[in-house]
């Protein structure tokens, strides 16, 4: 970070006193561990989140093994992490272990993996750079946000090692089951179920601090000339995401506190009158309502889906614009769509609760809003699709992920429609269909977008490119494996496979052994030697896909760490020839980001401007430099969206 000296102000400027900013004086632990620099915090978020994603992925492999091969001993490389405690004597997965891993897979992936990666890592690293800010508005709050997240994550993860094991009641933690679970252990406080709630309180606090910081930064620290309609779309996505986190998380905090009271103080917020545990009537007053818990949970739960998704769409917009070398088609439409999407996402939550016995009118209301919310989603997707049209597309590695994202996300979205309708949802609720649907949105959807982001912004962070060959080796197996895993889920789900079967349906032969491919059909000839394939056999396909996916991530890990050290050095600070502000910094960006305060002259995606000397006109260059004197006059003629 030698270049950073040029941008520092004199010491007299900062009135933080003790927190002087001289690069050479900052000790290592302050610079990289307890750092207040948004980029370092972003990287911290990123690596922590990747570790948690790997853990969540491992849990999934164990579960998928149990589904495909119930009652068979876990292979040694999976069982190595598990004590005898949770395995059957024959080495197979116990139902308790499956429940535990199911609950924690969801929790870890959503709250510890994707949100921190999408919002914490990319949001922290990229947002201030893209709006031309020297840092976040509250750098120390930013640091607190990361440490709260880490504390919550460590707490959540360490609950695996308690006597009770981790939480087992699903990532939704529904009461009253969650209230009663683990109450037979010596100390109710030191059980996975209680620690889950505590960890959630930490994670929620972290998200709230982050959200406040992001919104303030975007509102108040935009560079000169960076008007609202000149914001890169990624920043809009982060802004809406931050609002979702800010306003949707508190009700979940309420739910967590109330469930904590139920467990620790004996209250009955979520325990109805006359609840029995096994044969004993519970020693509680009753009078509570499990429905209340579901309301509070899903008031967060649904906006949370968009928290997972919107940063991804933001990344894709950046990558698509950059690699098609043309402006995003319908930028304004996308901005309004994402705002409407954010608004509507607050009033659709009860479509997760059609089976709870709500009345017709309420169900009809939520059904209507849920169908409405597909409109802005389709606008976003369509705009990105049309942006491809007529572009001279460069199939760089990030662009591969982006182009795969579009249909995969489309799959996820379209298969959501039957779940929006009350009548069809009654049939599909809690089946593998639901699993397939939201995994298409989150796994090949959000995750692909995040991979695109990693490949896209890696040069900015390190000054080196990631290896393209390893990138291809990462992408193609991932794309194929994702579909191998999730596509058969729709078939199983429509046939009634329940999402919580730890044995993959072995016990329910009547349902699960129905024939999927007739014996002797060309498909069964091709794949199964002519024998009939039952629905339950699809489990083997999916589990095979899961292991392929696992192997497919090895090139990524090699690429990520290898490229930090040995990647091809970029010759220019703007290797992708992009237009947004993060590429006008020195590489890597120093503390304080910009060599001089940037000024924004144009819209974010001015690619292939007619008459310009390059096919990209960066936001930070005045017309004379970016377009050339001849083009400047032409550019002045153009109607611009810069006036908002």
């Amino acid at each position, binding site marked *: 970070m030698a270049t950073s000296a040029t941008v520092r102000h004199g010491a007299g400027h900062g009135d933080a006193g003790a927190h002087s900013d001289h690069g050479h004086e900052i000790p290592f632990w302050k610079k990289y561990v307890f750092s207040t620099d948004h980029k370092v915090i972003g990287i911290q978020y990123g690596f922590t989140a990747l570790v948690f994603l790997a853990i969540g992925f491992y849990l999934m492999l164990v579960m998928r093994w149990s589904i495909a091969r119930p009652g068979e001993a876990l292979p040694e490389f999976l069982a190595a992490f598990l004590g005898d405690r949770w395995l059957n004597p024959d080495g197979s997965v116990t139902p308790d272990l499956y429940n535990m891993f199911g609950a924690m897979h969801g929790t870890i992936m959503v709250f510890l993996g994707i949100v921190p990666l999408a919002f914490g890592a990319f949001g922290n690293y990229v947002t201030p750079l893209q709006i031309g800010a020297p840092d976040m508005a509250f750098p120390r709050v930013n640091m607190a946000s990361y440490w709260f997240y880490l504390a919550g994550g460590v707490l959540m993860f360490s609950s695996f090692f308690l006597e009770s094991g981790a939480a087992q009641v699903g990532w939704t933690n529904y009461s009253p089951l969650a209230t009663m679970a683990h109450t037979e252990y010596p100390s109710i406080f030191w059980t996975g179920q209680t620690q889950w709630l505590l960890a959630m309180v930490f994670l929620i606090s972290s998200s709230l601090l982050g959200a406040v910081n992001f919104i303030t930064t975007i*509102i108040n620290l935009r560079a000169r000339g960076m008007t609202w309609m000149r914001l890169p779309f990624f920043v809009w996505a982060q802004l809406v995401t931050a609002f979702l986190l800010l306003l949707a998380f508190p009700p979940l905090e309420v739910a967590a506190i109330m469930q904590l009271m139920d467990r620790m103080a004996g209250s009955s917020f979520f325990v109805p009158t006359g609840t029995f545990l096994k044969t004993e009537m519970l020693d509680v007053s009753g009078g509570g309502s499990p429905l209340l818990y579901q309301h509070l949970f899903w008031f967060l739960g649904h906006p949370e889906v968009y928290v997972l998704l919107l940063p991804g769409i933001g990344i894709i917009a950046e990558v698509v614009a950059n690699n098609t070398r043309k402006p995003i088609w319908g930028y304004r439409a996308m901005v309004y769509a994402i705002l409407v999407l954010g608004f509507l996402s607050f009033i659709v939550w*009860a479509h997760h609760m059609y089976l709870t016995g709500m*009345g017709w009118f309420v169900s009809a209301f939520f059904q209507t809003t849920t169908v409405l919310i597909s409109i802005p989603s389709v606008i976003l997707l369509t705009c990105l699709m049309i942006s491809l049209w007529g572009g001279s597309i460069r199939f760089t590695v990030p662009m591969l992920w982006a182009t795969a994202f579009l249909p995969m996300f489309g799959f996820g979205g379209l298969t959501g429609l039957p779940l929006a309708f009350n009548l069809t949802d009654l049939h599909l609720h809690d089946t593998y269909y639901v699993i397939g649907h939201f995994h298409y949105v989150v796994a090949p959807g959000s995750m692909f977008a995040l991979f695109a982001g990693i490949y896209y912004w890696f040069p900015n962070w390190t000054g080196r490119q990631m290896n393209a060959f390893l990138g291809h080796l990462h992408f193609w197996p991932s794309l194929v494996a994702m579909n191998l895993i999730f596509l058969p889920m729709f078939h199983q789900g429509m046939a009634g496979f329940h999402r919580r079967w730890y044995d993959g349906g072995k016990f329910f032969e009547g349902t699960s052994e129905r024939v999927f491919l007739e014996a002797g059909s060309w498909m069964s000839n091709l794949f199964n030697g002519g024998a009939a394939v039952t629905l339950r056999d699809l489990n083997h396909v999916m589990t095979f896909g899961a292991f392929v996916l696992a192997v497919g991530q090895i090139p990524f890990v090699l690429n990520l760490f290898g490229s930090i050290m040995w990647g091809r050095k970029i010759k220019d600070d703007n290797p992708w020839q992009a237009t947004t502000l993060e590429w006008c910094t020195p590489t890597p960006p120093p503390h304080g980001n910009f060599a001089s305060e940037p000024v924004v002259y144009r819209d974010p995606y001015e690619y292939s401007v007619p008459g310009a000397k390059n096919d990209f006109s960066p936001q930070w260059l005045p017309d004379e430099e970016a377009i050339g004197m001849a083009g400047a006059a032409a550019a002045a003629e153009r109607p611009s969206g810069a006036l908002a």
Partner: protein
Amino acid sequence: MAETPEEIRKHIRLYWGVGITLLVFTVVTVVVAKVTPSITIGLLIATFKAGLVALIFMHLNSEKPMIYKIMFFTAIFAAGLVWLFIWSLKDPIVR
């Protein structure tokens, strides 16, 4: 919002006036509760008091548009939270 010392000096009487009004209405709400168990009246008084605090003490009577926008949407979502909860409780599946 008052920013200069002169303006603030003028506002101090207002702040004390609001404080006294709040105290008076606290007495009123206790007395009303003794006379009638009406929830509506109690909530109306509370809303009036809360409005005074928000408008005068928290200067919401003269804030910047950005703050209004944020709080407007927050109010909508909070109202939705309360209203939809109650609606779902009051709309039974069988009627």
